[in-house]
Each structure stands twice: as C-alpha cells, then as structure tokens.
C-alpha cells in the first residue's frame, strides 16, 4: 500500500487521542484504523511519527521561559504586590458580599449607555451655553478663547460655558480612548458587577474625566443646576 503524505501521519499523531473511532477519516482515504495499521508495518512512516513526537518532547524539555530563574522570594514579593493592588484598587469593595443577579453583559453595555446619555446632556448644554463650535481637546475655539478660557465669577453664563467645554473636552477624550480599545472580553461567562461598582463612575471613566468632575465644587454644580 502506498504511504500517506507525511502531513497525514503528523496529523494522525495530533489526533491520536481522539475518541472519534477507528473508522473516522483523518484525511479522505485514510481512516484512523488504516493509518494505525499502516504505520505499524511501515518503517518510514513509523519514523516520521516518532520524529514528530520526539520534536515535541524536546520543545517541552526546553520550555519558553527559564522557570528555575524565579525563586520563592520573587513570588513572595509578587504576592505582596498583588495584595497591595487588591487593597488599593478595591478597598471599597473588598469586604462587601457580592450581589448576584445583575444581568450578564452589563459591564460592556453600561459604560456605553452612560457615555451616550452624558453625551446627549452635554451636547444640549453646549447648544444652550456655547455660541461657538464644540471644542475638542486639541482644537481651540473659533474665537480664540480655547479651553483655557478663564471664567469670570461675575458672569454665570460665561462660567457655565467654560464648564460645559471642559466636560465636553474630557468626554471627547474618554470616548476616543474607548473607541481605540477593541480589547476582547476577558472571560466569556463572567460579566457581573456589584451594585457599588455600577455606582462608582470611576470604574468607567479614565482619571482625566474623573478629575474634571471632581474639580467641580458645590457652588459650580449649583450654578449649573440653577441655570438649567
């Protein structure tokens, strides 16, 4: 019987632990059973198979990283870093029981929904308050005032315009950053959030936007609400 192509032999090697059964074809004309029988009686094909398996064994022996180069002390330090990171980043959440039952996919959907809502509100504010074009972080306003326009405390309208521009600029940065990040979900079956995570806007926005929101004092917020 003519020998199969060496690729068929190596594919057979990869499929060997298949539960498919002897009659299932590895390639048209060659079932598992036929290949097993052929290899057992063909020195050349048996060598191809052994060579393939030996190569895999050698690669496993070498490994991609030098595992032995990392001592226990390295992992003691890593564990401490992880603990510190956990304590710092989730100190608000660390001791709270997890609240079950939030719909799957919430994590990916909520930020987009919040951003869309924020965008609608801010565009509305911009239309009300701004006579010029909507600014971007890098583009000054047409009238040359730019994002660094100083506010006049005696003019609440100008103050409102400035705040609106700051928020729009921050939002534009945030949306741009999100659009440029097409990272895949980290796990397909785990997108649950705790209620406190959902309430925490810091979870969704980068520090730039958070800082802008945090920089508003009570009087500034009151003035915006009163204007509305």
């Amino acid at each position, binding site marked *: 019987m003519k020998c199969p192509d060496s690729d068929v032999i190596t594919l057979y090697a990869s499929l060997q632990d298949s539960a498919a059964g002897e009659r299932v074809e590895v390639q048209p004309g060659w079932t598992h059973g036929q290949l097993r029988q052929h290899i057992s009686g063909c020195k050349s094909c048996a060598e191809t198979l052994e060579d393939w398996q030996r190569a895999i064994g050698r690669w496993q022996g070498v490994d991609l990283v030098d595992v032995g180069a990392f001592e226990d002390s390295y992992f003691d330090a*890593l564990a401490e870093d992880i603990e510190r990171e956990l304590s710092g*980043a989730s100190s608000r959440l660390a001791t709270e029981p997890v609240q079950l039952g939030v719909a799957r996919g919430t994590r990916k959907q909520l930020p987009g929904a919040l951003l869309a809502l924020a965008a609608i509100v801010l565009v509305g504010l911009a239309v009300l308050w701004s006579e010029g074009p909507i600014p971007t972080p890098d583009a000054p306003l047409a009238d040359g005032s730019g994002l660094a326009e100083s506010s006049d405390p005696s003019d609440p309208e100008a103050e409102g315009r400035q705040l609106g521009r700051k928020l729009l600029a921050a939002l534009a940065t945030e949306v741009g950053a999100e659009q440029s990040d097409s990272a*895949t979900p980290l796990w397909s079956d785990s997108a649950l959030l705790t209620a406190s995570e959902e309430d925490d806007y810091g979870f969704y926005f980068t520090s730039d936007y958070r800082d802008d929101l945090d920089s508003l004092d009570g009087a500034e917020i009151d003035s915006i609400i009163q204007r509305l």
Partner: protein
Amino acid sequence: MDEAELKRIQGGDRAVFSELIRAHQRSVFFLALRMSSGDEALARDIAQKTFLQAWRNRASFRGDSSFKTWLLRIASNLSKNELRRAWRKREVVPSEGIEGDLSGLVVTEQDSFEALATEQARAFLRQAVANLPEQQQRVAILRLYEDMSFAEVGEHCGITANNAKVNFHHAVRNIRKFLAAQGVAA
C-alpha cells in the same frame, strides 16, 4: 476549592483569596511570561491584573471548571489584550523584539535542536512560537507547557477539542518550518 471556600470568597473573604493567590500565582505568572515572549514586567503586570479581575468578578465563578483553569483563562485573555495594546502603541513590534536575541546566535548549517545550548534553543523556540498565528500560539503554549488536555485547551480557547488538535498540528508544523528556516533541524 471546596464549596465552603467558594462561598467564603464570594462573601468577600480576603484571607481565603490570599491563600489562592499564593497557590496559583506561579502558574498565572509563567503563563503570562510565556505568552508575552518572556517580557517579565508585562507578565508581572498581567499576573496582578488577573487576580484583581478575579476578585472583582468572583461572583461569576461557579466552580464548573477549576479555579486555576478560570484564572489561567483570565490571564491568557489579558495577555492577548495587553500584547495587542502594546502592538498598537508600537511598544512591541511582532518579530522584531526577539529578532535581536537571534541575531547574536550562530548556527552551523543543519544544526540539530538537540545540539543547541539550552538558552540558544529557548531563544529560537520562543521566536518560533511568537511568530505563530494567535490561536495556534495559544493552543501550543497551553498544550506544550500547561499540560492541558485538548478538551481543556479547547474549552480555554472557546473552540472544540478537535479544532484544538488541528490548531496544534499546524502550530507544530509551523514551528518546525521556522526552525528549519533558521538552520535548526527540529
């Protein structure tokens, strides 16, 4: 992990989670290190993020797979995402970063893989794996170095066990081709 431990973690018990960090951090770190072609800083960062994400999403772990499998899945996805991000920022250019390692290696014609010094063999192998398509790379690392069955590899990558086998076959063939092109008979 038994059911009592699982409930304690889901209830916010950091002490139990700390024990799991100690138990699994090596596996997580080494997987990240292999997937990031030996970038230690990146692997360390990925290990930290893995446990952070695991803690934040502990409610979603139902115990269907082992906790280690779940952690490794997070770690490998994070690795993939971080490498893509680094590539987008041009911090890492595929095939260039490690090419430098190879430039200093001298291989006599038709040298065999066995005859190479360990560090040299590792450098070639790392480069060969780094050059694989993403799915083949993942499958090869999980099968060769994480000691996973094809069923586990398939589950990990979201593909069937048979698909994992075919990917592994292509990965092995491509690694051999790459090594042969470098003058190394594998």
